[in-house]
C-alpha cells in the first residue's frame, strides 16, 4: 500500500510554549496516535519559531519525532531574535480601558502610526541583518524626535492625576471632620484594651499611609496607562502580529508547493489563513462559545481582543468546507444552524479521554497509594503559593485540606457565579468545611469577584493560577469531589476523565454535550445537576461529598469504558475523513 501524506497546519504565536497549552497537548496526543498508522505520514507545518518548541513538546510527551515531518520557513526573523534577546521586555500586559488621556495619546500616535506600520512590516519580514539594522536605525532617529512630545503629555497627565488626588484628600478630610470614626487608630493594640484592634470591623478611615499609598498607586497607574499604548509592550504586540503575517505567507507558500500532501487539517478554528491552502482542508471547530453568551462576552475586559478572535473564527469557518466537531451539539447548533454549514460537511470525532494519572501515579513503593498522595501534597503546597490570596495561603500548612475542585479558565460559559452561590450555601448553611479551589482568574468575571468579596470568601475560594500539568493532576487527585458547572462546552468536558483517572469522583452540569457521552441513566441521576439552579448544584455536591466512595464506584466502570477509546482511534477517524475529502477533491 502506497504511503499517504496528510498535513497538519499550525500557526502558534512566537511566545507560545506548546507544552503548557491545551492545544499543544492535543497535537502531541494526535501525533502519538498517528504513530500506529504505518501507511500514513503526517507533515506538520509550523512557523519557524515553533519548530524547536514542537520538538521539545514531542520529547516531553514521548512522541517519536522521526514519525512525522516538519516544515517551516527557514531561520527565525532577525527581529524576533533581537526581541528574544531582550525577552524581559516582551511581557505584554493586558490592555486597559482607555480614558481621556489615553485616547489623546492614541490619537497622537495614530498620526505617526501609518508610516511606522509600513516600516515595521518591512522590518518584521526581513531575514537580512543589514535591512533590519537599517530600519531599526530609522526607528531610533524617529524616537529622538518623539521624546519631547511624550514628555509633555506625561507631565500633563501627571498634573491632572495629582489634582484628583488632592481633591480626594480634601473631600476625605471634610467628611472625617463631620463624621468622627467610631474607632481611632490611636487606640493601643492589645494593651489592656477590652477589644483588640483587629476586632474592629468598621472600614478604617483613610490614614496617612493610605493617602501615600493612593498617591503612589495613582502615579503607577498614570505611568502604566500612559506607557502601555506607546511602550515596548504594546509595540511588541503589534510587531508580533505583523511578523506573524509575514511568517504565515512564507509558510503557505511552502505548503502549497507540497503537491504530494493529499489534504490538510487545522486542529483549531483560530487560523483563517488556513483557508489559503489550495488542497482539501479539514478544520476542527471545538466550539464558538461567543454565540451562546453574546452579552456576557460583550462585557469582557478584553473586548477588542475577543472581537478580533471572533472575527478570525467566523472568517475561518466561512472559508472552509469540511469540519470536525467534538459533539453533535456543536455540529447542529453551531455549525448547521448558526453558520448554515451543510450537515454532511461536518464530521463528528469525539476526543479520546484526557487522563492525568500518569503524572502522579507512583510505583515501586510498599504503599504506592500513600506515597503518591504525599507526593501530591507537596505539589499542592507549591500550587497554593500561586493562589489569589498568597497572604493567606503562603503559610497554609495542612496538606490534607479538603476541597472541591474545578479546573477551568473563567469564561462566561463556565457558570462560576452559580458555583460560588452553591458553595457559599454549602459552607455557611450546611457547614461542609471544604474549600473551593479554582484555576481561573477571578478578575475575568467581575460578578464572581464581587460575590467573593461581598461574601468574604477570599480565604475560602482559592484561585490557583498558572498550574503546571503535574500540579493540576495533584489538585485533582487530592480533591474530595471535582465539579464542572459549565453551561456550554464543545465536547464532553475533560473534567470527567481527568478526575476519574486519579480516582476523584465528579459532579457535572447536565448539558447536552456531556449527556451525549455520559448517557448511563443510573449515573445520570446521581452525578448531574441543573447548572441554572445553584440549589441543585449544592445538593449534588453535598451528596457527592457524603457518598464519595459510592459515586466513585459507579463512575469508575464508565471511565474504564471511555478510556478504551485511544488517540489512535481519533486519528483513524480523522484519516478516514481526510481520505474522503481528498478523493472528493480529486473527483471534482
Amino acid at each position: 500500500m502506497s504511503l499517504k501524506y496528510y498535513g497538519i497546519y499550525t500557526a502558534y504565536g512566537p511566545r507560545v510554549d506548546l507544552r503548557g497549552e491545551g492545544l499543544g497537548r492535543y497535537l502531541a496526543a494526535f501525533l502519538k496516535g498517528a504513530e500506529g498508522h504505518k501507511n500514513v505520514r503526517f507533515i506538520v507545518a509550523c512557523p519557524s519559531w515553533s519548530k524547536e518548541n514542537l520538538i521539545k513538546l514531542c520529547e516531553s510527551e514521548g512522541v517519536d519525532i522521526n514519525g512525522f515531518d516538519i516544515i517551516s520557513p527557514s531561520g527565525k526573523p532577525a527581529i524576533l531574535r533581537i526581541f528574544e534577546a531582550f525577552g524581559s521586555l516582551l511581557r505584554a500586559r493586558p490592555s486597559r480601558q482607555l480614558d481621556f488621556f489615553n485616547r489623546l495619546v492614541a490619537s497622537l500616535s495614530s498620526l505617526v502610526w501609518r508610516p511606522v506600520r509600513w516600516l515595521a512590516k518591512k522590518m518584521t519580514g526581513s531575514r537580512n541583518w543589514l535591512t533590519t539594522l537599517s530600519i531599526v536605525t530609522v526607528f531610533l532617529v524617529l524616537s529622538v524626535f518623539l521624546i519631547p512630545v511624550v514628555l509633555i503629555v506625561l507631565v500633563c497627565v501627571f498634573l491632572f492625576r495629582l489634582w484628583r488626588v488632592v481633591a480626594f484628600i480634601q473631600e476625605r478630610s471634610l467628611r472625617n471632620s463631620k463624621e468622627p470614626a467610631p474607632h481611632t487608630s490611636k487606640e493601643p493594640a492589645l494593651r489592656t484594651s477590652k477589644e483588640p484592634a483587629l476586632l474592629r470591623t468598621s472600614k478604617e478611615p483613610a490614614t496617612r499611609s493610605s493617602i501615600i499609598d493612593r498617591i503612589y498607586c495613582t502615579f503607577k497607574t498614570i505611568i502604566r496607562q500612559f506607557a502601555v499604548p506607546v511602550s515596548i509592550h504594546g509595540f511588541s504586540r503589534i510587531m508580533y502580529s505583523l511578523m506573524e503575517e509575514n511568517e504565515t505567507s512564507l509558510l503557505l507558500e511552502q505548503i502549497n508547493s507540497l503537491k504530494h500532501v493529499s489534504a490538510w487539517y487545522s486542529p483549531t478554528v483560530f487560523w483563517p489563513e488556513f483557508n489559503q491552502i489550495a488542497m482539501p482542508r479539514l478544520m476542527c471547530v471545538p466550539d464558538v462559545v461567543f454565540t451562546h453568551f453574546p452579552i456576557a462576552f460583550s462585557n469582557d475586559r478584553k473586548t477588542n481582543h475577543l472581537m478580533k478572535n471572533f472575527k478570525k473564527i467566523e472568517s475561518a469557518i466561512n472559508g472552509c468546507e469540511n469540519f470536525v466537531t467534538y459533539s453533535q451539539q456543536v455540529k447542529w447548533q453551531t455549525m448547521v444552524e448558526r453558520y448554515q454549514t451543510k450537515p454532511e460537511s461536518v464530521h463528528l470525532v469525539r476526543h479520546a479521554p484526557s487522563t492525568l494519572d500518569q503524572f502522579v501515579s507512583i510505583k515501586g513503593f510498599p504503599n504506592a497509594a500513600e506515597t503518591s498522595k504525599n507526593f501530591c501534597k507537596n505539589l499542592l503546597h507549591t500550587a497554593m503559593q500561586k493562589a489569589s490570596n498568597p497572604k493567606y495561603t503562603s503559610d497554609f500548612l495542612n496538606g490534607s485540606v479538603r476541597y472541591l475542585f474545578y479546573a477551568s479558565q473563567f469564561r462566561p460559559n463556565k457558570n462560576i457565579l452559580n458555583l460560588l452561590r452553591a458553595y457559599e450555601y454549602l459552607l455557611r448553611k450546611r457547614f461542609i468545611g471544604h474549600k473551593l479551589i479554582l484555576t481561573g482568574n477571578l478578575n475575568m468575571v467581575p460578578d464572581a469577584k464581587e460575590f467573593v468579596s461581598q461574601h468574604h470568601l477570599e480565604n475560602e475560594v482559592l484561585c490557583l493560577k498558572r498550574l503546571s500539568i503535574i500540579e493540576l493532576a495533584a489538585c485533582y487527585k487530592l480533591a474530595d469531589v471535582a465539579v464542572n458547572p459549565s453551561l456550554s462546552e464543545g465536547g464532553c468536558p475533560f473534567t470527567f476523565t481527568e478526575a476519574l483517572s486519579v480516582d476523584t469522583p465528579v459532579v457535572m452540569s447536565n448539558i447536552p454535550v456531556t449527556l451525549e457521552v455520559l448517557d448511563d441513566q443510573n449515573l445520570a441521576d446521581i452525578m448531574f445537576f441543573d447548572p441554572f439552579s445553584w440549589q441543585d448544584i449544592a445538593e449534588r455536591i453535598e451528596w457527592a461529598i457524603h457518598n464519595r466512595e459510592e459515586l466513585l464506584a459507579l463512575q469508575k466502570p464508565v471511565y474504564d469504558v471511555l478510556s478504551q477509546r485511544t488517540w489512535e482511534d481519533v486519528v483513524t477517524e480523522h484519516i478516514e475523513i481526510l481520505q474522503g475529502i481528498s478523493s472528493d477533491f480529486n473527483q471534482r
Partner: protein
Amino acid sequence: MKKRVMWLLNHTAARKFEVAMLKKIGFNEIFLPKSYPQEASFRSASIDYSEDQYLSIPARDLQILNAADWYNGPDKDTWAVANEYFDILFFIAPLPVLANISQNFKGAAIWRAYGLFKGFSYTKINEFHSKGKRNLETMGKRFWFGLAYEHLHQIECEFLKNRSIFLPLGLHNCTIQDNQWNGMEKKILFVCPELNLNPYYIKIYDEFKKSFHDMPYAISGAQPIAVNDPHVLGFVSDEIYGQIMREFRVMFYHSTEPNHIHYHPFEAIRAGMPLVYMAGGILDRFGGINQPGRCQTIEEARSKIRRILDDDWELINTIRENQPRILDPMQPENCEQAWRDGFDRIIAELEQAQGERSASPTKKHCKIAVIVPIGYRGGTLRGAKVLAHALWEGSRQSGEDADIVLAHLDDPELYPDEEFEDLHPDISRRAYHWDTLNNDAARLAMRYAGHDFWEPNFSKYVVPNDGIQQFLDCDLWIIISDRMDSPLLPIRPYISVVFDYLQRYEEIYSHNADVWFLNLARLAERVLVTTRFTEQDALQYSGVVPGKIKKVPMLTPSFKPVVSPLNLTSLDNFFIWTTNTAPHKNHKNAILALKEYYETLEGKLECRVTGVGTARLLENLPPHLDPLVATLKESRVLRSKIKWLGELPDSAYQMQLSNAAFLWHPGRIDNGTFSVVEAAQLGVPSLSSDYPAMREIDAQFQLNLTWMDSSKPKHMAKQLKWIEENIISVKKGLPGKDILEQQEVEKLALEYWKVVRECL
C-alpha cells in the same frame, strides 16, 4: 550502660553495613523502626524485623516501640520505654523529630550524616526545623553529629563541628566479583532516578543527554513515575539489575558533589565494571587523583568512554585493575577502629553527662501559664479558669505536679478580685500587659535566651509583661483563644486554645485582618479545640498541620445551685435568652421569632434577656441591630413581654435560670454555649439553634436539647410554642446527676494533661 542501640533509620544498604558494624563493636541488641514516611525520597528504605529476636526487652514494650512513628516524634510514654532500655540512638534528617528527641531522649543521640548536595548543610536543616531556636544544643554532650565521611563537618556551624564524630560508612560486602563481568552490552550505564519527580535529577539527565546523546546508553535507577523515554529502563528486579551490572560495558558517574556520593559507583566497582567518573567528588578522597577512570572534563570522559565502547581492552583492564582501591576505605575492617574509637567517646561523655545530671539539684515542678490575651469575661474567662484547674488536677493525677499561673490583663476594673473567688486556691494569678518589641529587640531577646540562629520574620513581636520575668519562669504558655493582633515572640513554646473560627461564617473582620490569629495557631506547638467542628475549621481555615490539633473534651465549671429553685408552678412563666451584642447571636431572627410567638401563636411565657451588653442593647445599638428598633417599636406585645436584664452576677443569674421554664439559645453559629449545660445542671431544659457545635455539646452531656432552625423565624417561634406546651415532658429528658458528674473537671483533667505534657 545499656548495650543496646536504637538505629532509627530505614536505609537498606546503610543498615546492612551499620548493624553488622555495631555488632562487631559489641552492641548486639539493635532496635530498628518498623515504619517510615511513604514519600518518594525514601526510595531506598525498607523495614527489617530480623533484629527484634535479639532484643532482651519485654514483648509488650517492644510492641510499643514498633508501633511508634519515629520520623514524626512519638509521645512521652513511648519515649519513657525507649529511655528505659536504650542509651544510644541514631537518627536521620530531615525530620520534625529533631525537637522531639532533644526534649525526650535521655541518652546519647547521633544525628547520622551521609552528606548533602551542594547548597545544603545540616546546619541549615537544623535551623529550618527548629526555626532558628535552640534545639539539639540543649542536649549538650549527649548529642553527636555522626559523620559518614570524615570531612562533612567542614561546612557546618561551630556546634555541629564540635559535636562531630567520625563513624565511617562502608560496604557490607566489598568482595570484587570481576570474574562475572563480561561487558557484552556495549552501552553506557548511567544511574539517574526520579526523572519525572526530582528537578535535581532531571537537570543531571539533561546534562548527560547533552554530553552523551551520540553514544549508546541506558538509564537505570528507580522511576516512581513512569518515564516516556526508550533509554530509561525503569524498575528492574534484583536479578535483572545483577545482569545489567555484569553485562554493561561501562558506568559513567557524573557527580562532582564534594559531600555526597551515591551507592551505585561502588556497586559497579564491586561488580568489576569499569567506572568512568568526574573528578572533584568524594571518589577522589577514596581513590586518589591518579585513577585511570577519573576525568577532569566531559571531553575526557567522552574520549575514555568512546575507547571503552570501541573495545580498547587495555584501558578497560587498567581501569578495572586500579579501581578496587576506591573501595578500601569502605572495607568493614578499615572502618572498625573508627567506630570503636567513636563509641568510646560517646559512652565516656554520656556517662559524664549522666553523672552531672544526677548531681544537679532536682528540678522543681514545671510551671505553666494560662494566658487570657484580651479582656475576656463571662464564659471565656470561666473557661480559662476551668482549664487552669484541669491542668493542675491532671498533672497531679499523673504524678507530675505542675504549677499553674492564670494570667489576665492588668485592668482592675475588668478583673476585680471577686472575679477570681472561684479560682482553685493552688492556682496563682498574675496581671500583665502586652509589650511590643521591634525586630531588633526581638532578635536580641532571643539571642539572650540562647536561640542563636533565630531571625525575626516580622517587624514587631509582643510579649506578656507581668513586671517580673515576663512569664519566662513558666515552661509553657497556653494562650486562651487565637485573638492576637501581633505575632507572639516565640521565646517559650506555646499552645493556642481555639474556640471557633466565626469569621468563616460571619463577616466579623475585613479581608486578611485575621492573619495574625491564623499565624498564632499555625506556629503553636499544639492547637486545642473542644469540638470536631472547630477542629475542622482549624484544619480547613487556619490550615494547621493535622498532627498539631488536639480535640479535648469540653469542660464546664461546676455550676451547683447556690439558691434553691422556687415553686416552679408559680414562677416558671418565663424563659431565659442568654446573648450578647455579637452579630452571630442572631438578634434579628430572634426578635422576629418572638414577634411571631407572641402575636400569632399567642405565646404565654415572658422572655428575659441576659448577658454582657444586653442591659443597654437597645440604647447603644451596634449597626447590625438597627432593624430591631423598628420591629420593637411597632409591637406593644413585644415591648411588654421582653425584659432586658443585662449582665447579672452569677448568683442572680442562677436564680433567674433555675426558675425559668427553659433556656433559649437562638445564636447562628459558634463553638457552642455552655449555658445549656449550666441550665441542665439546674434542671432547666433548653431550646437551641441547630448547628454542629451544639449537636456535639448535646451528645457529650446527653442534654436532649430541643432544636430549631435559626435561619427561619417562623420555625423558631413554632418551637418556642411547642416547648411551652410540652415543658413537663421535655424536662423528663434532662440528664441525670450521674451523667453530669461524669463531665466534671476532675474526671476530664487527665485528658488535658496528656496533651499538654507533650509540649513540656
